[in-house]
């Protein structure tokens, strides 16, 4: 199977030159979109930084320097998976603070709540490969429903 896939990839890369450039020395990140514009005899090839696809859904940032979660003014629980999902990678790991831009306390809180959500089996799609998505298939006590109390998190403002 892997061999067949390898052959197919090779064929696509070398015998079908029409397809877009698929050989690259470094990892492709697709940060910039390459555009070709032809005007008479000049061809302009330019790399444009695309806006974020969810730019219109972004919350307004505060001027007072508060972190995005503090300025949003929401009481986040470990069951709010749609919010916690934004702070993790595709394998469920927490993003570092220099990327999320949170303050120290919120970064700790969100990290703990992400762990809670994982253990409660609420973020099954954000797991490393070959992981059980359904928490009901876990062993022993792990398959039973568990909830967590956010007041047990020590990091808080008051």
């Amino acid at each position, binding site marked *: 199977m892997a061999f067949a896939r390898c052959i197919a990839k090779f064929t696509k890369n070398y015998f079908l030159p029409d397809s877009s450039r698929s050989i690259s020395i470094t990892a492709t*990140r*697709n*940060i910039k979109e390459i555009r070709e514009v032809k005007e008479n005899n000049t061809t302009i090839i330019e790399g444009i*930084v695309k806006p*974020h696809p*969810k730019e219109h*859904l*972004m*919350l307004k*940032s505060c001027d007072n320097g508060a972190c*995005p*979660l503090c300025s*949003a003014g929401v009481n986040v629980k470990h*069951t709010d*998976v*749609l*919010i916690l*999902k*934004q*702070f993790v*990678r*595709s394998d469920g790991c927490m*993003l570092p603070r220099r*990327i*999320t*831009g949170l303050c120290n306390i919120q970064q700790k809180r969100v990290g703990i709540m992400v762990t809670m959500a994982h253990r*409660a*089996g*609420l*973020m*099954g*799609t*954000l797991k490393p490969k070959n992981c059980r*998505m359904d928490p009901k298939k876990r062993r*022993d*006590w792990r398959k*039973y*429903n*568990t*909830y*967590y*109390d956010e007041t*047990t998190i020590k990091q808080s403002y008051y």
Partner: protein
Amino acid sequence: MSIVRRSQQWGTFARMWHVFDATWQDPYQSSQIIAKYLLGRHKPISHPMNRCGDHVVVINSSEIALRGDEWQMRVYFHHDTYHGGASWTKAWELHKKDPTMIMKKAVYRALGNNLTRHQAYARLHVFLDDKIPLEIQQNLSSQIKQLRPVPQRLDQISPEELENFPQIVKLPETYVLT
């Protein structure tokens, strides 16, 4: 006695049947609420000498949720009166054996230690799933509100809601999520 007053009398002293969905509910917290209904403490005519307790039907008791590591840490004690007859059963082992037991024991404890306990406990009906006998189902007329909202798993949320949820994190332009 006029027919209005008579029907008011019936309505006041009739036993009601409440249903409580135990999905993702803490049995020890919800048992306090259930005990209140079983003893009739939620009624204005409630009095220790007045028997006005209601029936409570608890469904989905196999889907209860315990806090933190309580499935391992909470232990049920039993002694069969012989020497060395003490046994300690963890909550998850008891739940594996009988999914209605934790709910029943929690309510039994919440009812308090007096002579009304057994009568009130007899009015509790616990079912491990939502399949209840028809004769009980026909009696139901009220529902007790759940203490905690049932959490939604990420794979159960529709793709439209996932797409259109407001974004809090603004990632740096050069940072690409894998």
